[in-house]
């Protein structure tokens, strides 16, 4: 019998620190599997953010660096410029990447850093208790938008993939979701492609992954998958926004 889905050596045995049903775990697995499939695990350096994935250094089975909130792309730049033949990736939440880390993200993109960014969009600050993120949907209730995000006061959601794709320097930009087996398979393909782009030295690759935060959304994990599909995907459409072959 063949093992079709198996624990990957790209991950340690350590139990994830995520809440039950939080899809951060799925994304971890896809990234780890990709590194293993490409045979680059032992020359990979990963950068974890500040956010629920802050403990990712316990999970990814490669050398890892924990970066200051939002600065992972700068840290990755430091690593990649010193070790150009290593595979370098960051794993960042929406608060980390799209709020406090906006400048580092845009400029790593503009410099065409040969790194891969896994960007986990769950529309909230998970770790700190469900505050509004730059990606919070209009009308969405969070601990800091108790009556729902109101554009007049709190502004509009930021569409990261759309913002970064046109920047010269990015080579691959996509948006995927991990709300269904099908989308998980597509997400895996996209993540693989992002790392391949890095290996080819083409520029920055970024995969925005729509993810759930059942805890702070106040939903059961299966409800959260549904909420993602019904509310997030319409605002954050899936697809490849830029490929090395040309914008799509």
């Amino acid at each position, binding site marked *: 019998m063949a093992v079709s*889905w198996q*624990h990957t050596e790209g991950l340690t045995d350590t139990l994830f620190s995520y809440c039950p049903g939080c899809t951060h775990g*799925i994304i971890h697995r896809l990234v780890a599997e990709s590194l293993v499939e490409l045979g680059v695990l032992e020359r990979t350096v990963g950068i974890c953010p500040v956010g629920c994935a802050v403990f990712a250094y316990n999970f990814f089975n490669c050398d890892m660096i924990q970066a200051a909130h939002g600065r992972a792309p700068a840290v990755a730049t430091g690593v990649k410029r010193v070790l150009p033949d290593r595979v370098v990736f960051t794993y960042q939440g929406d608060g980390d990447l799209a709020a406090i880390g906006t400048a580092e993200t845009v400029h790593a993109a503009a410099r065409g850093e040969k790194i891969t960014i896994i960007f986990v969009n769950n529309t909230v600050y998970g770790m700190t208790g469900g505050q509004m993120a730059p990606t919070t949907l209009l009308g969405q209730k969070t601990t800091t938008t108790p009556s729902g995000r109101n554009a007049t006061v709190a502004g509009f959601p930021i569409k990261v993939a759309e913002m970064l794709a046109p920047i010269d320097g990015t080579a691959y930009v996509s948006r995927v979701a991990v709300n*269904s*087996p099908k989308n998980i398979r597509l997400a895996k393909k996209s993540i693989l492609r992002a790392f391949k782009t890095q290996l080819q030295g083409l520029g920055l690759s970024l995969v925005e992954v729509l993810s759930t935060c059942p805890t702070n959304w106040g939903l059961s994990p*299966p409800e959260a998958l549904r909420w993602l599909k019904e509310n997030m995907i319409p605002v954050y459409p899936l697809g490849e926004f830029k490929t090395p072959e040309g914008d799509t």
Partner: protein
Amino acid sequence: MPQVIFNNDRCKGCELCISVCPKKIIALSKETINVLGFHPAGVTDISVCTGCSFCALICPDLAVIVLREEGDNGQSVNEGE
């Protein structure tokens, strides 16, 4: 027949596997509480399992392994929406 192995000690009882199983053959065991304090998931009737692996794909905690016959790829990528 495929085999679906649940790692009880990793399961957080999140029910995502339950929600995606096309055959509705996964359930939490209400009697057991695992080391983490959760009711772990398990298969109720393996005989109808298609080996589609949706359960393993969606499990965020690496708590499911699906074994199936060589050559049987379960459902295709385009399914499982």
